[in-house]
């Protein structure tokens, strides 16, 4: 952790609540969320399915309305989607009828300029897919498609990258590879990132902080800092200790696999 100089706040969430109407009954998806994320920080949010993780990301992305509370990106209130935020969804969501190259340039304002072509090829390089510019999404593996989706989200140089369980549908080996890839990309691009996951190891491997959410209603239960140098060793003692701390947030009483170890 390079915590020497105090970093500016990139995203400030204050007292955010959101409910949905399901069959004319109010379902609380998020309740009183407070979170401050520093410039360049990598925040990992873990929580069980249905605890409101996607809802939180969508609100930050500007895709959801009808919430209460304040969200500030830098000094500006979030009032809708914008190029200052990029989003990677669990499914790659590439346009099936466009080549990899055209999928990446899809979000560029001036697609046919020389500068755009350069940006696209740089981002293809960044995600390690230089040879696949002309391929169609159906010709890609799941991991490759997700890389394209990351490139597409980064192409406008967003200040904030939102990742909603981006590796949830990948096999274990590809997943680890992609996690390393994301770290490398963050090193290069210095983008502030918020990653949502239900994989505790993934959260600890990637996050500067791990935000643990609990469900019904979705609240922040605890924020656990991960002060380990990168690259992190998943089998190290320190890693295991943090893993234990996160586990304990989920399985307080029901089952504690570490309770009788001493």
């Amino acid at each position, binding site marked *: 952790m390079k915590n020497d100089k105090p970093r500016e706040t990139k995203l400030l969430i204050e007292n955010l609540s959101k409910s949905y109407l399901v069959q004319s009954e109010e379902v609380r998806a998020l309740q009183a969320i407070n979170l401050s994320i520093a410039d360049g920080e990598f925040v990992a949010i873990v929580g069980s399915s249905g605890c409101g993780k996607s809802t939180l990301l969508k609100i930050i992305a500007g895709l959801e309305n009808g919430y209460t509370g304040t969200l500030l990106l830098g000094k500006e209130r979030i009032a809708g989607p*914008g190029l200052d935020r990029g989003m990677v969804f669990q499914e790659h969501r590439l*346009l099936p*009828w466009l080549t990899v190259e055209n999928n990446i340039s899809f979000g560029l304002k001036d697609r046919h300029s020389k500068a755009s072509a350069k940006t696209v090829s740089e981002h293809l390089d960044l995600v390690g897919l230089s040879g696949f510019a002309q391929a169609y999404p*159906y010709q890609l593996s799941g991991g490759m498609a997700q890389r394209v989706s990351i490139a*597409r989200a980064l192409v406008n140089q967003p200040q904030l990258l939102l990742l909603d369980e981006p590796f949830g549908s990948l096999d274990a080996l590809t997943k680890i590879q992609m996690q390393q890839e994301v770290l490398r990309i963050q090193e290069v691009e210095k983008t502030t990132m918020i990653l949502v996951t239900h994989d505790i190891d993934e959260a600890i491997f990637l996050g500067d902080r791990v935000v643990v959410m609990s469900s019904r209603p979705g609240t922040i239960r605890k924020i656990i800092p991960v002060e380990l140098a990168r690259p992190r060793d998943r089998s190290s003692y320190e890693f295991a200790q943090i893993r234990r701390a996160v586990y304990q947030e989920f399985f307080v009483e029901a089952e504690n696999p570490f309770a009788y170890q001493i």
Partner: protein
Amino acid sequence: MTRKTIRYTEKVKHVIQYFGLLTVLLVVWQVLSMLGFIQPIIMPPPTQVAVVFWELLKSGVMIRHIGISVLRVLEGFGIAVILGLLLGMAIGLSKTLARMTDLIIQVIKPIPPIAWIPLAILWFGIGEQSKVFIIFLGAFFPVIVNTIDGIRQTDQKLVEVARMLEVSRSRFIFQVVIPGAFPAIMTGLRVGLMVAWMCVVAAELIAASSGVGYLIMDARQLSQSDVVLVGMITIGIIGKLMDSLIYRIEKRAIKWKTAFTGV
């Protein structure tokens, strides 16, 4: 057996499956005719139909009728495609327009084109225009309805992607909505062309002196059941060829979509 001969026998099997049933039916029909179970006046045997077909082809009469009918269909279908696509896209993209037009479309759609013949003659006379109008009516509704449906089925997930990237409205329409609607639009075109071609007989009921529909109606008055059958089969074959053509175009245009072909 080598892999090559296995593939070859597979192919032969498929060809037999494809043509077998039709061949059996033709043979049964022929045999029943020859045994005198089917009267030639009511249903001439396949060989007689083939001979008449060949004669009409050789004399150039058939080609002329086919040419005229195809031209009428292309005119009516062409207008239906242009109007159907434009209106369908407009209605698909605008909720207000959809609300305004829905009832009209729903009520006019079930009226068969043949019921329009009296009005078509009053409005356009007995020339080419009324025939093209009937064909247009047949093709228009499949095209417009499928276009609207296709646009309505735009993937909400891709809409979110486009919103995140602040994609312009025109790029959204041309790169998200229309390509997404393309398979449905192609279905509309296929069905539309089919219906247009089926309407050609109805259209050529209107004081025609040429066309495959005319050929059939004319032969009916002369009780030439063999010519009637030739006309019918011609319509069937050309319809199939048109459908295969559009299907080819569709396959080529949407190579990004892998279709289910049946088990």
